[in-house]
């Protein structure tokens, strides 16, 4: 072993990083699910949506929740992002490798990196907007969506669900919590469900727009 | 000249080579192993079946002991083996197996309880043996004695031995091919070798050298052996002009090579209850061998199969006639677990699912009993400081027929013994060599290479090395196979002699620079043809039938004239080996009936 490795001794940081990545990811995926479910309350009507939002706000849940999410969001970026090939040479190798191999899960990972980076940007914008535009109301949300933000949300929705789905799939694989094949199907179905749910909500906002 | 100096130089990183290396390293000696391939790729890993050792733990092996093993081995060899060697081997084998267990081989173990054998027989494994090493059935033995790890016995033993080699820090120079032994007419001092990564030549100087280069199956066109088993250690020794090869005519054919790729379907298939069927789907072996049926000794089964095919019961195919191996009745579960490797081979290489299809098989070259002749200590005849063990050697444990499972055991046991003896020798000797002598040998190799590469101009004919090799393979397959006779053997000898002359005019079609594979073969081929001649000429001269050597014109064993071992020498500038003979050592069991083989069943002849 080399000198610098001997003097640094054994470290557990890689384990901790891995766990932080895991739990922050799971948290964010969970949050994404809740977020989409809350949001889809618009389908049941403007009132339901506003009431829900108000309840959360009154109990400071929204404030606490949003701040936590923002922190975890960036922690997740820092821990998961350390795996992203950063050097040009590496990226080229990976690109060649993935192209040759034609392997679904490897493609999925490349997709996850790309979605992750875009989410980092779009998610940040989204959070900024929401935080500065509080409290959350059906009217403001609808207005936002009608004023050209629709495509922004369509993309963010798709990317987030895909990113979360692949992430959870890979974590389950890595820890061996579930057999591979059925896991793929289950996560696929759940992802499609959330995408549909999100679309319906967006559509409702768009329609509700006339108000 | 790149020179490397060591105490003990071992050529070959198969089981025999690595076991020897460990023994020598444990005596505190500096050991280097050379190998054509990384150790774990050696041919030994392909052995699936098992390793014989009289442990007597399993129900069907109860009461077993080294003496019964000894008796099986001697009978199996058709009294061609040296009995003092066989005795030493059988006594040591149990320790060898246990030591491998200590080092990490996951031998299958006895699980207590009642069991039903595929044949319907019920056996009971005793509680008191539970957890000890168990064994399976192999052809030609009185007891179940082949210790095994599922279907990867050779693999696990090789991986375990190699792990110990790594642990001990023994140096392995892989992709390094020994081309010539360095000697001074009295003593061996190492080898000249060619690096198969770069093509560079090296000289290795050592106090003692051990040949553990494996068999020469690839002399034959249809062989179960790995493609690197070209017998190079044997012709290296032969080319010293001092060292004889023993019993080269003793070639074993395995009854069940998969048609047409010649991959071995192990004895395990029949041991677990597989049948051999003919074109009418008739199970014919009980007709010939009512008692042992499919599990008679290998040479017997192989001969019965050929005989049955000659009678017209073979299945016709583009690759010649063959027979069927049937394991369907063993059931899907058994096939996919216990015989998984066999099932995979059938699926991957023949597109056959043995769970519900028949497997096409035919006897195929499998093992060379002959090799570099050594004494009981593994010391090679005729030269000091040179040892040999494993399949490359003629120690002589197998005589004219090797029992299934005895050769894995031989590699380990002989490795232990020869390693120790080589170490003793090494500790008692000095490293003396003259630069001049080493340089001479080095230059001979260099000149050879030059002649092959640059010789295009001054040669009358430009022979293609691949073409010559194919001819050699065909000649042996056709005329020096399972059934032999004087006429065909003479044809073979003549054809091989001509081939030998042609091999002096080999020209390359590639540049031959660097690690050229064509040059590699061109360097080996003349030696291989010499070995082929030793096989064919030895067979021609041996006018009797013994073990796997079966002469149609001399169908009986002739103890009066032939209870002896062939020793083939090769004087340079000759195109035939010079044959001498020595008596076989008989210490305990005088020649008699083999007992289990060749019973005069209703389908049999003699």
């Amino acid at each position, binding site marked *: 072993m080399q000198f610098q490795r001997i003097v640094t001794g054994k470290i*557990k940081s*890689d*384990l901790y990083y*891995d766990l932080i990545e895991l739990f922050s990811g799971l948290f964010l995926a969970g949050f994404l699910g809740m977020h989409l479910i809350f949001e889809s309350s618009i389908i049941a009507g403007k009132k339901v949506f506003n009431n829900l939002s108000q309840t959360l706000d009154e109990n400071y849940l929204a404030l606490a929740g949003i701040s936590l999410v923002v922190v975890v969001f960036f922690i997740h970026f820092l821990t998961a992002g350390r795996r992203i090939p950063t050097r040009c040479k590496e990226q080229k190798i*990976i690109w060649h*490798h993935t*192209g*040759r*191999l034609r*392997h679904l*899960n490897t493609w999925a*990972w490349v997709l996850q990196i790309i979605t992750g980076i875009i989410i980092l940007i779009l998610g940040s914008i989204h959070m900024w907007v929401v935080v500065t535009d509080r409290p959350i109301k059906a009217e403001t949300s609808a207005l936002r969506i009608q004023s050209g933000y629709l495509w922004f949300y369509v993309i963010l929705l798709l990317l987030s669900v895909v990113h979360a789905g692949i992430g959870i799939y*890979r*974590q389950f694989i*890595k*820890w*061996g*919590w579930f057999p591979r094949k059925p896991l793929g199907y289950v996560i696929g179905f759940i992802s499609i469900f959330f995408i549909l749910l999100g679309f319906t909500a967006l559509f409702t906002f768009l329609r509700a727009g006339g108000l | 000249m790149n020179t490397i100096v060591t105490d003990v130089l071992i050529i070959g990183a198969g089981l025999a080579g690595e076991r020897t290396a460990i023994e020598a390293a444990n005596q505190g000696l500096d050991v280097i192993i050379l190998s054509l*391939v*990384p150790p*774990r*790729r050696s*041919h030994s*890993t*392909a052995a699936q079946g098992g390793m014989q050792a009289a442990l007597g733990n399993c129900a069907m092996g109860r009461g077993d002991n080294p003496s019964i093993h000894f008796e099986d081995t001697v009978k199996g060899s058709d009294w061609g083996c040296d009995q003092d060697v066989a005795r030493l081997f059988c006594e040591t084998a149990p320790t060898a197996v*246990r030591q491998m*267990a*200590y080092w*990490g081989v*996951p*031998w*299958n*173990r*006895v*699980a207590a309880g009642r069991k039903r054998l595929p044949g319907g027989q019920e056996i009971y494994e005793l509680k008191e043996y*539970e*957890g*000890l090493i168990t064994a399976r059935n192999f052809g030609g033995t009185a007891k179940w004695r082949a210790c095994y790890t*599922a279907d990867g016995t050779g*693999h*696990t033993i090789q*991986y375990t031995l190699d*792990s110990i080699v*790594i*642990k001990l820090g023994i140096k*392995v120079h*892989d*992709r390094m091919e020994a081309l010539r032994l360095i000697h001074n007419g009295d003593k061996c001092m190492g080898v000249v070798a060619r690096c198969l*990564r770069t093509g560079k030549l090296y000289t290795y100087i050592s106090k003692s050298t051990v040949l553990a280069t494996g068999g020469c199956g690839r002399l034959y066109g249809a062989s179960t052996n790995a*493609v690197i088993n070209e017998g190079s250690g044997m012709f290296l020794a032969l080319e010293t002009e001092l060292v004889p090869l023993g019993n080269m005519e003793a070639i074993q054919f395995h009854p069940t090579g998969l048609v*047409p790729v010649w*991959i071995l379907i192990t004895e395990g298939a029949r041991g677990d209850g597989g049948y051999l069927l003919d074109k009418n789907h008739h199970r014919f072996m009980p007709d010939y061998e009512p008692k042992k049926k499919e599990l008679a000794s290998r040479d017997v089964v192989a001969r019965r199969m050929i005989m049955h095919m000659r009678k017209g019961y073979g299945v016709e195919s583009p690759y010649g006639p063959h027979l069927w191996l049937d394991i369907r009745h063993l059931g899907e579960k058994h096939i996919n677990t216990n015989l998984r490797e066999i099932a995979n081979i059938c699926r991957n*290489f023949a597109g056959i699912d043995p769970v519900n299809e028949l497997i096409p098989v035919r006897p195929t070259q499998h093992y060379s009993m002959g090799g570099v002749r050594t004494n009981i200590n593994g010391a090679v005849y005729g030269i000091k400081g040179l040892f040999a063990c494993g399949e490359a050697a003629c120690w002589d444990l197998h005589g004219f027929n090797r029992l299934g499972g005895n050769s894995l055991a031989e590699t380990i046991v002989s490795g232990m013994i020869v390693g120790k003896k080589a170490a003793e020798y090494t500790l008692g000797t000095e490293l003396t060599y003259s630069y001049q002598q080493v340089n001479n040998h080095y230059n001979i190799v260099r000149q050879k290479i030059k002649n092959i590469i640059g010789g295009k101009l001054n040669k009358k004919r430009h022979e293609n*090395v*691949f073409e010559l090799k194919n001819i050699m393979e065909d000649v042996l397959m056709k005329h020096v196979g399972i059934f032999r006779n004087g006429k065909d053997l003479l044809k073979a000898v003549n054809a091989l002699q001509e081939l030998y002359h042609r091999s002096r005019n080999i020209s*390359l*079609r*590639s540049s031959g620079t*660097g*690690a050229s594979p064509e040059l590699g073969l061109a360097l080996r081929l003349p030696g291989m043809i010499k070995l082929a001649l030793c096989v064919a000429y030895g067979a021609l001269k041996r006018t009797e039938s013994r073990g796997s050597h079966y002469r149609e014109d001399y169908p009986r064993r002739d103890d009066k004239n032939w209870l002896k071992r062939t020793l083939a020498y090769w004087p340079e500038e000759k195109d035939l080996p010079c044959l001498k003979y020595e008596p076989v050592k008989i210490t305990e069991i005088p020649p008699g009936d083999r007992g289990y083989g060749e019973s005069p069943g209703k389908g049999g002849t003699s």
Partner: protein
Amino acid sequence: MKNRELTLNIFRYDPNIPGREPYMQPYSLQETEGMTIFIALNQIRENQDPSLKFDFVCRAAICGSCGMLVNGRPRLACKTLTRDLPEVITLMPLPVFKLIGDLSVDTGSWFRQLSIKTGAWVHSDKSFNPNCQEERMSNETALKIYEAERCIECGCCIAGCATANIRDDFLGAAGLYKIARFMVDPRDERPEEKYFDVVSSEEGVFGCLGLMACEDNCPMELPLQVQLAYVRRKMALIGFRV
């Protein structure tokens, strides 16, 4: 079956000749019944180009010598039937391993280094007593160890692994599988922390991204995911204990 005319595009490169650039060379070949890449390559060497370098030993998918990229995917060439491939076949050497020439790579040295790095032998303070019976072991344990030792070190998992392609020090599936083999072996007396030192880093199990190209390309169809997950869980547990 109609016998096709195959085209094999083969990667050619000799690192020993300075200044020589790699290139792809096409060879045409008549397909025969039951032809494998092993048969095809040997025919090319015998009849067309004797300088072509590739490695085969057992030609029976046992020894692990013949890993190469067949149409981009790591395969054992000896057990790849041409009938399962299109008419144009591309052959390239395995990535990650040192290139010896053409299709030949040095998997042997890589795996040897791996064994040294992971201490891949049974660590025990007991000495062998030739006069004693072997230590007992249940047959299930024996089979479990065997299952974990079935890797043939062909390198296909490593070549397929994205991480291994960019991280020279990554143990890869083969390395972690090897460690699992000794973890399930009761004869190995290594304290658990020893394993932690070797594998609980980015070079080891926590460098794994879970892409499973290893499992999907393993010619032996080893349960790599299950074993890798086992090592990961075990390492996490040990990590909190030590």
